[in-house]
């Protein structure tokens, strides 16, 4: 997977390049909208990460130009503005996504993966998820650990399902709030910790190998 990062701030561009390269993407990076236009028109990128404020043009303008010239790769918009304005929301509806700075790298990776999944359709919807000896049935809404059923509330089940779907990847608190509780708010509260703690008490109780881990400062990870 090859990405194009358009960001004028050197520090952010370098750290993005590094972080995305470490998670397995091939990354091209540039600081100017005009450079980005040239690179993107080569048509080799699977997704674009575009900062809204570029020195030579508005990020949205760049996207509109690319769309007009037939570039259909999904775009993830980065914005320093706190509330993302209507135009960006409009773009988001078109299949793209946005993130406001500061953001967690884990969330950036997750959103990029989601964008890339969306642009390559045809994946079958699974009905069962399995991680080590944890098995959850999405239709009957049941979870079992080593064959023993775990009694979960609806919220706990939704949380476990989200962790399982992202097994092996770190999810942030904001991602959990967004996907499980449908609340897209930035919060530094530890309210998600409370839920994770409860879930861990049920899923990882009296087992040798706990599955749910807390990555301090970032989020949570469900892994064998």
């Amino acid at each position, binding site marked *: 997977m090859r990405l194009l990062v358009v960001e004028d701030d050197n520090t952010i561009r370098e750290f993005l390049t590094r972080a995305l390269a470490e998670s397995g993407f091939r990354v091209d990076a540039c600081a100017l909208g005009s450079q980005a236009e040239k690179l993107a028109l080569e048509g080799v990128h699977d997704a674009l990460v575009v900062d809204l404020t570029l020195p030579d043009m508005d990020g949205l303008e760049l996207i509109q130009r690319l769309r007009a010239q037939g570039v259909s790769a999904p775009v993830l918009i980065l914005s320093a503005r706190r*509330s993302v304005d209507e135009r960006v929301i409009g773009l988001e509806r078109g299949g793209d996504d946005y993130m406001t700075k500061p953001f967690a790298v884990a969330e950036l990776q997750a959103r990029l993966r989601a964008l890339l999944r969306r642009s390559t359709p045809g994946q079958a919807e699974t009905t069962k998820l399995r991680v080590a000896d944890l098995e959850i049935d999405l239709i009957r809404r049941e979870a079992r650990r080593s064959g023993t059923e775990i009694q979960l509330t609806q919220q706990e089940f939704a949380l476990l399902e989200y962790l399982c779907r992202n097994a092996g990847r770190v999810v942030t608190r904001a991602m959990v709030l967004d996907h499980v509780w449908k609340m897209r708010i930035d919060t530094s509260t530890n309210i998600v910790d409370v839920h994770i703690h409860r879930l861990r008490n049920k899923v990882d109780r009296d087992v040798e190998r706990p599955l749910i881990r807390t990555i*301090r400062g970032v989020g949570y990870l469900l892994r064998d």
Partner: protein
Amino acid sequence: MFSRVGSSFYRTAAWRLALRSTLVFAAGSAAVFFVMYILVARTVRERSDSWLMGESETLKQVALNTPRDALYDRIVEEVAELASQEVSYDGNGGHLAGNTVFFAQIGDVSHPPVWVGPTDSGKFLNAIASMKISQGAPVSLRIAGWPTPFRVVAVDMRPGEGRIYLGLLDSTAAHLLRQLLAWFFLGWVIMVAFGFLITLLGLRRMLKRVDAISGTAASIRPDDLSTRVPAGQQQDEVARLARTLNNMLDRISASVNQLRTLTDSVAHDLKSPITSVRGSLEIALSLEDREQSSDLVAGAIEHLDRLSEVITTSLDLAEADGGALRLRRETVDLSELVNRVAELYAPAFADRHQHLAVKTEPSVQVAADLSLCTRMLSNLMENELRYAGARAAVSVTVAAEEETACITVEDNGPGFSTELLPRVFQRFVKGAQSEGHGLGLAFVSAVAVVHGGRAVARNVPQGGAQITVELPQTAKTGSQPRQTADSLLSSE
């Protein structure tokens, strides 16, 4: 020196206004005086005209009835003399200076004219000969050498017997009229002068107050906003202007003070976490033990997250205060949202052995910014978690009242301290034991206000704190926000 003072004085509004109003006043009063003068003059003339008419008729009868003999001229002259004396002398027989009467009878060419009057009869007879006759009505006739015109009436005798003329120069009346004119003019000049002076002084006094206000206003410096313009005790426009300015200064000074508090608090709230982040990273760098250094780095990230939230909330609050916070309104079902937020927080309440009860009316809808409302509710919940105390009973109610939707959060905890209660929604105001930044409830209030509602805090009589957030309901909030909400929904 004088010319400099003078020219600046002539540019003042007081001078211009006084001059303008005086000109209007002078023109108006001159017109009134003129009309009065015309009326008096006409009355005076009518009096002399009526005397002329009466006398001329008498003289005509005398002339007709007197036989045309040698004595005829003498008799007519005698009668005319008597008549002229009526107006030439006052009641006590004193001569009235200037009043002049003449009588003339001009018959056929053979008979010489009968003349009673001033001695220079030639001028009179010439003037009479060329005058236009208006039978029976007096006309004005100017005689060479006399200052004012005579009023002259001409009466025809029997055919062939000629015509008699009676003329009167009423100098007394003319003198009276001249005097009247002089007095009127004098009175007018004095009135106009006084009027101008009074207007000018009054205006100058008032505008001096305006000058004082502008002088004070100009002297106010950004670093000292405590000066106030002189308002005085009056209730007029200038006093109102002064009071308006003072109110404005109060508001500006409050804003500036708030800004100072803000910058102070921001400096504190930003510098403390930055210091601790920097310290953590510095230590992490020098540590050999990887697990310990990761711990420090993770702690630094958590600090940064909190910092980011403080910045976001501070900026939101500043924008809300300045009316610049942009709302993305959509139809929000408050009951559903409150239930969802309560569900999220329920385990946290349970962990602290607090009892959370939620009571919502079905489908209470508001046109609101979902993200702001969610954060507002989250803040209310955090507030209860922190301050209601262990084992407290917390209730959240959503109710629809006529045009407002009310969210009430109540607990049976210690309540707000009396010192805190009146300022609980102000920024950076927090309880003594609070570990927060004092932004949570300020944000709650700001969100309520930007949506056209309000937040009210009080202590309930049986003990405990109560916060009510009132938001205008969708159904009654006019079409604008609803349309936006509908269009958002339909395009999804």
